[in-house]
């Protein structure tokens, strides 16, 4: 694992404090910054696990047609135009005329436009060369194939049976409850049907539903296609020659009922629709993400992502970088460097650290706000099982700058335009690199603010590894930042109370504080004697 920082979303726990990072389960509470959202109303971080997702529109991923939600149900969530999926490899199929020109160029141009070509037409896969003529499926017209195919799908005995079942149970399912279940997740649990089934009036409910008489007797292999485990299937399996004759699970489970085991019986499928989703805050129901109506637009009407509110943190290990440089240099100059040294460098380059040593690390904070902020860092002291029993102490100790440090405001003009600015501070890096050679000795300026440029501030920290330290160096860090709020009253519903990228107004500035937890992962600890064995990055 490369060194990295992830941000905490408190949705999985009842306390605002994250679980100790030494627990494997803590992984699920931390997310990369770019996948998080920020609710201005609640002033809180939200993640993909806790937001409420709503479908805001359907589209076909192949023809990119935006399907109105009214017809989605009638078309069974699949594209009703000319988009089909190969049953063999799930690639998109193309419509081909059956009588290609005789000049032998069919292979290079499998698509023939409807203007040319002779009927019957069939579907052809560009990838695995499957074609629908194999399953006796040809079409008179190259258009409206989906309607023809859907007719075929709907006339399947299983589909008819399902329709009958639905009709049978329709009166017992109030239409309103299904609509409710669709709109509000979790309401399914309180569906009146399930409640009456499990509840006290079970017998009463049962008597209301008349007996269902199936079209086809269950278990009989006549009406239904093979694949239900009848003698036909046994016979087929007995005479199997290659595994390819059997349709794989992947090829069969796209259907909602049992289908034939024969690979050569597979039928083309209409392509399932995709959806655009809008996301809401789970507690205040304010919209966090609202995409534009157009299916292929990548813009959003509302987009409250955490990256616009919280400072981005990146971590780097100067010793790993120096080692990387060393490897490059030694491999470029002479290959005769002793393997032990080279291996040690390789281990260091992959981010491994040796127990009993002290390493510096850099944290770069990038301010996304239009106002300067003051940041203060705290390491979360946790009682790990080993430290709780008092016999062992924590495997490592982390030192961070204890005083608050400033980060300048974000300004569009700084956005990567002048190249000199980006690398103008090479000297600082070199200084940090140079200290590596005197590893373990006291150095000036390891902990503290190392560098400030544009809206980025780099601070240094230090980690002291115990002699017996093992495993991953990971610690929770509380980041508290203070920004100027334009809103004098925090109770006010004005959304400018949060650190949004809004222009400042002529109100009395007031300082506000926001804190969030992160987990910082620095890398693996290796013991010196094991360093040659344990080099697995």
């Amino acid at each position, binding site marked *: 694992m*490369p*060194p*990295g920082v992830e941000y905490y979303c408190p949705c999985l726990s009842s306390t605002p404090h994250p679980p100790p990072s030494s627990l494997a389960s803590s992984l699920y509470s931390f*997310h*990369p*910054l*770019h*996948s998080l959202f920020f609710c201005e109303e609640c002033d809180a971080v939200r993640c993909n696990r806790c937001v409420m997702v709503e479908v805001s529109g359907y*589209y076909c*991923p*192949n*023809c*990119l047609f935006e399907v109105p939600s009214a017809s989605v149900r009638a078309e069974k969530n699949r594209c009703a135009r000319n988009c089909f999926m190969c049953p063999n*490899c*799930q*690639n*998109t199929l*193309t419509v081909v005329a059956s009588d290609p*020109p005789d000049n032998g*160029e069919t292979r*290079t*141009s*499998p*698509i023939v*436009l409807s*203007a*040319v070509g002779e009927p019957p037409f069939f579907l052809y896969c*560009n*990838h*695995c060369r499957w074609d629908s003529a194999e399953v006796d499926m040809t079409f008179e017209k190259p258009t409206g194939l989906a309607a023809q195919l859907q007719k075929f799908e709907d006339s399947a005995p299983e589909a008819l049976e399902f329709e009958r079942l639905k009709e049978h149970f329709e009166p017992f399912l109030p239409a309103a409850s299904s609509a409710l279940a669709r709109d509000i997740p979790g309401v399914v649990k309180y569906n009146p049907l399930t409640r009456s089934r499990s509840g006290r009036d079970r017998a009463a409910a049962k008597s209301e539903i008349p007996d269902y008489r199936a079209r086809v007797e269950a278990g009989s292999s006549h009406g239904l296609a093979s694949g239900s485990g009848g003698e036909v299937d046994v016979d087929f399996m007995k005479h199997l020659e290659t595994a390819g004759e059997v349709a*794989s*699970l*992947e090829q069969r489970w796209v259907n909602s009922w049992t289908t034939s085991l024969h690979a050569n019986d597979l039928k083309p499928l209409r392509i399932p629709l*995709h959806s655009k*989703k809008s996301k809401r805050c789970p507690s205040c129901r304010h919209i966090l*993400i609202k995409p534009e109506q157009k*299916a*292929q*637009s*990548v813009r*959003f009407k509302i*987009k409250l*992502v955490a*990256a616009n509110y919280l400072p*981005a943190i*990146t*971590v*780097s290990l100067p010793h790993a*970088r120096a080692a990387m440089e060393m490897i490059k240099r030694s491999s470029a100059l002479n290959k005769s460097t002793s393997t032990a040294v080279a291996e040690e460098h390789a281990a260091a380059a992959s981010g491994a650290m040796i127990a009993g040593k002290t390493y510096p690390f*850099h944290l*770069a904070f990038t301010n996304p706000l239009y106002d300067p902020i003051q940041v203060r860092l705290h390491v979360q002291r946790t009682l790990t099982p080993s430290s709780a029993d008092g016999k062992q102490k924590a495997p490592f100790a982390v030192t961070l700058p204890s005083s608050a440090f400033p980060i300048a405001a974000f300004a569009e003009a700084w*956005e*990567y335009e002048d*190249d000199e600015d*980006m*690398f103008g501070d090479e000297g600082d890096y070199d200084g940090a690199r140079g200290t590596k050679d005197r590893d373990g000795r006291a150095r000036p300026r390891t902990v503290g603010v190392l560098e400030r440029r544009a809206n980025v501030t780099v601070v240094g920290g230090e980690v002291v590894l115990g002699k017996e330290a093992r495993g991953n160096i990971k610690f929770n860090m509380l980041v508290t930042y203070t920004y100027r709020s334009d809103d004098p009253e925090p109770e006010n519903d004005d959304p400018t109370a949060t650190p949004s990228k809004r222009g400042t107004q002529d109100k009395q500035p007031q300082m506000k504080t926001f804190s969030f937890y992160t987990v910082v992962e620095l890398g693996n600890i290796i013991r010196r004697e094991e360093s040659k064995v344990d080099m697995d990055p």
Partner: protein
Amino acid sequence: MLRLKAYHRFRFPSEYYSLVLKAAMDNPIYYARAEYIETDTGNKVSRRATIAGPQNIILGGKTIIASGAIIRGDLRRTGPGHAVVISLGRYCLVGEGCVMRPPYKTYRGNFNYYPMKIGDHVHIGSNTVVEAATIGNHVDIGKNCVIGKFTIIKDCAKIADGTIVPPNTVIPAMSLFAGSPAQFVEDLPESTQEMVEAYTKNYYTRFQPMPTER
């Protein structure tokens, strides 16, 4: 099971983006000053790249063509007049050993090449063959991919390393595709556009000539 497997492989596609973030602090990517030609608009084209028919190729500016890339601007539509064969936007990267070839087909009995249009902030990994018709903005294509003829890739899509995209495929916006044949894996996060833009700009900034003292 293919889909499941593919999903597992990209269970944490965010790793890619954390790498992107990490790269923001990384060292410059040095190249030998003599190898690259820099144009007025900031395009950097390797002398070791094969640029056929340069009069038919448009580079938007700040675009990098790495060494060993082959760009076939000579495969133009038949007929008189000037024809743009391949156009690339700003902040693009054509990786080492890439082949960019316009798609072709026989339509009504006439064999013809069709132009290829690529948007801004598009990175194409090394040794990838591209025969797409259209590639949108902020698209990231991995290394060792094959992008089939007349493929349409919409904005902010990502193609994982080693993906085979069959001809005529459409890849919708903000989706991750992987596998052979390429299949949808998952939707990318809403902030993809910003991430890719920052990454491509940063890549261009880091891509600089080796200082003479070294």
